[in-house]
């Protein structure tokens, strides 16, 4: 049996900030893994010689807000590590990322309670547990390790994109028994958030009941937000991927 192909997928659309960040990210991967395969998904208008040179595979996308998921569904690699463009690799352990599946088909990083201070909204009524305990989003989509050899994973990625497009366009939202939109259980503020379509598919869609969705071991090191408070020690081993997610900075220089 042939070895699965392995590679990183980075999506940069809409602004130069994401494009330059993506180039930087790919170079930072190759600083530690010179032979790593990297696929850059970007808009043709953003591409320059730097991107052409560093990317092993190029896919052109449009400027849809969720080109990220569109790109994820089209990964040319069997085992794919998707990383948000505004990240940087800073440790050699990036080379062991493809050993982290641990029996799962798709892995993300988590949203445990001790890191909730970093996120705007986590809990919502529709996710409340049967015992009455509050619940909500558990997965963070900043990075995603997935096995495209599994047809269910492929379908999942496509369905995630399709559902998100419908959601953003206002054509899909969970309904109440009377047929109206259920905004009591699923707040209006989630309508432009792919986190919600991810939650819906993994928690409510029977088709994906057998999909093994997991959280990376020592997950904070694989997606360490620059806003994390170091004294809370979210990571056990050194940070591998740092996520620069400051929205204000993104707007500051690049449009």
């Amino acid at each position: 049996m042939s070895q699965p192909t392995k590679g990183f997928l980075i999506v940069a659309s809409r602004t130069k900030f994401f494009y330059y960040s993506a180039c930087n990210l790919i170079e930072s991967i190759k600083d530690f893994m010179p032979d790593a395969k990297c696929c850059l998904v970007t808009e043709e208008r953003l591409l320059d010689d730097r991107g052409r040179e560093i990317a092993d595979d190029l896919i052109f996308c449009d400027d849809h807000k969720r080109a990220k998921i569109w790109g994820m569904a089209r990964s040319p690699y069997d085992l794919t590590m998707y990383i948000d463009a505004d990240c940087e690799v800073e440790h050699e352990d990036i080379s062991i990322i493809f050993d982290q599946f641990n029996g799962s088909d798709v892995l993300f990083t988590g949203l445990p309670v001790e890191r909730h201070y970093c996120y705007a909204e986590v809990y919502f009524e529709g996710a409340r547990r049967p015992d009455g305990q509050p619940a909500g989003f558990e997965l963070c989509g900043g990075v995603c390790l997935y096995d495209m050899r599994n047809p269910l994973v492929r379908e999942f990625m496509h369905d995630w994109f399709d559902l998100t497009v419908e959601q953003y366009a206002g054509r899909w939202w969970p309904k109440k028994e009377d047929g109206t939109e259920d905004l009591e259980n699923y707040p209006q503020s989630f309508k432009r958030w792919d986190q919600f379509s991810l939650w819906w598919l993994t928690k409510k869609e029977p088709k994906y009941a057998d999909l093994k969705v997991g959280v990376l071991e020592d997950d904070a090191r694989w997606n360490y937000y620059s806003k994390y408070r170091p004294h809370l020690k979210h990571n056990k081993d050194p940070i591998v991927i740092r996520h620069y997610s400051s929205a204000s900075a993104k707007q500051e220089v690049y449009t």
Partner: protein
Amino acid sequence: MEYEVLDNAYWEDGIDDRSVLKCIRMHKQADGSKRKEIIVFSRLLPDRSLCPNFKEVVATVGTEKIDANTNERRQRKTMEQKTGHVKKEQQKKAAQLEKLFHMKLQAFEIPEIRDSKNRKLRTALRRSENEVEMNAYASLIIGIEKGILNESTD
């Protein structure tokens, strides 16, 4: 007016002086609800006589309990101050890291750096831990690319 003095009163001037007392009085309203009143009493009134409100709170809560509240509050405030300081420092550091990241992206837009094949220096620039280090590597790359400095590329 009917009210209740809460038992979390403390000495505002510390347990050495015990001359200024801060407490909360919960007033019962006609509709059954309660109104909170935060109030400070000095032991002595302007005419040097003992303040009856002060006396009432000490009698209700007890000097020992007020001492304990004062110590507990002081410890809590010190801890909050420390935690607040740590939080502020970390926010500052996070902002510096973000800024450095954006400066590096900008550095890689400079044609001499963007097009440089000197992988060693490009990596060093990317891993710079502060602005000074980043500027030093950026200058080195530009110097080499412009032929001002002499170093073979890898």
